[in-house]
């Protein structure tokens, strides 16, 4: 393996790590409004936070199991879809995370 590919792999790993934390915040932010999986994915993608379904759906399940999201199966356009939105706890956590994000962002902007 060449140093170039090594660096590329390292960058990819660090990039994914950086995005991983922000994805949770992006998903919580998007779910202030109710969405089902596909429209949520599209919304995130349109806002520049593309996420593949193999990452999104397990993440939604994890957030729901932590009580941050609530979901329900409902029929829309003659098809059953699972709609997600923030729970009361989710709203509270989201507020705290957003404050944390802004604080990190301010600090980083000062350093970069």
């Amino acid at each position, binding site marked *: 393996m060449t140093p170039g590919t090594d660096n590329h792999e390292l960058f990819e790993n660090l990039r994914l790590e950086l995005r991983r934390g922000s994805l949770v915040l992006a998903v919580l932010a998007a779910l202030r409004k109710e969405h*089902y*999986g*596909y429209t949520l*994915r599209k919304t995130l993608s349109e806002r520049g936070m593309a996420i*593949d*379904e*193999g*990452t999104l*759906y*397990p993440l939604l*399940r994890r957030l729901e199991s932590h009580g941050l999201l609530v979901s329900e*199966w409902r029929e829309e356009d003659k*098809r*059953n*879809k*699972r709609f997600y939105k923030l729970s009361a706890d989710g709203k509270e956590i989201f507020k705290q995370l957003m404050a944390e994000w802004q604080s990190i962002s301010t600090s980083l902007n000062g350093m970069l």
Partner: protein
Amino acid sequence: MDLVESYLNAVAKALPEEQRADIISELSEDIRSEMEERQKVLGRPLTEEEQEGLLKKRGNPWLLAARYRQDHRSVAFGRQIIGPVLYPFYVKVLSFNLGLTFLIVGIIFLALRLAGQKISVGDMVSTCTLQFFIQFGVVTLIFSVVEKHLTKHPDRWHIKGMGGKFRLDLNIERDFQVRMGQACMRQARMGSHMREVSRFESVSIIVALAVALVWWSSVQSHPFLIFGPAAALFNLAPIWHQIYFPIVVLTDLEIVRAIINLVRPDWTQFRAIARVILQAGGLAVMWFAIKAGSWVMVANPAADAAGKYAQVAHIVNQCLVYVFVSAAIFSGAMIIFRITELVRWRRWHAGPRNVGSAAKEGN
């Protein structure tokens, strides 16, 4: 079954049962929404290739399913040998193999015990331990090879080949009908014998033959397993001891063949060739057995009623002639059939390749 169902089936098999239905419903909805949107953009239904392309983008179904699982156990001896993706399959296969093997070994020992044979606890423990190490070694080796392949080439998979039960084989025949007409259907049907080797079939063969080997080895010293209570009166003729080793070798080779096809189900030509060779070997062994002319003999020729038993043995041997000759004829016919099938398939495969997906078969 369409491509989406095939894909979802493959994902479902790797999901925990309690979440399976829920996850699959959601995933199905997501895939169909994406396909519908794509159709709207194109203004026409998606072709099979386009559908396959969209599913391919979602990644290997086993890797996708693994992301949903909370259980991230793996097998490691120093370094990881079987990762969390394959671990549930590994545990299932190993438990199934060991369970079935121990059950059959238990039944064999119980039968011997009931027949008054001397069986010590040590015999049972050593047989079970040996079987455990064989099964554990073979299954772990197979899965470690699959794991290595999966890690190295996570994108090398085919929707048509996932999941084991492929209803999409019908599509191959449909393609032939449309593109090549009725004349090619005969060849397509012939090609059905050259489809991917089912993993279930390979595992079944490995288990069945491992058990058969135990039985075959036990029969040599415990004729009760063939004769039942009559083992006190009759015995196996020396020919069985002479062909013991060739039969063990042929059985071992068939196990190796099944292991290879478990790892590479697409090596259909290899299976066809190996079957011909092994069947020819079997026929040669059968020829030696037929030439012997006597397969059952009186256990104690000096006994009082030995003459009467010798007559019974003679009748049994006479019947066995017909059984062996019929089996040899059947085996010979099968070899000819398989060679013909292989030659025809190779000729067809070497011909013009305008049949799309069907041409992917074989190795």
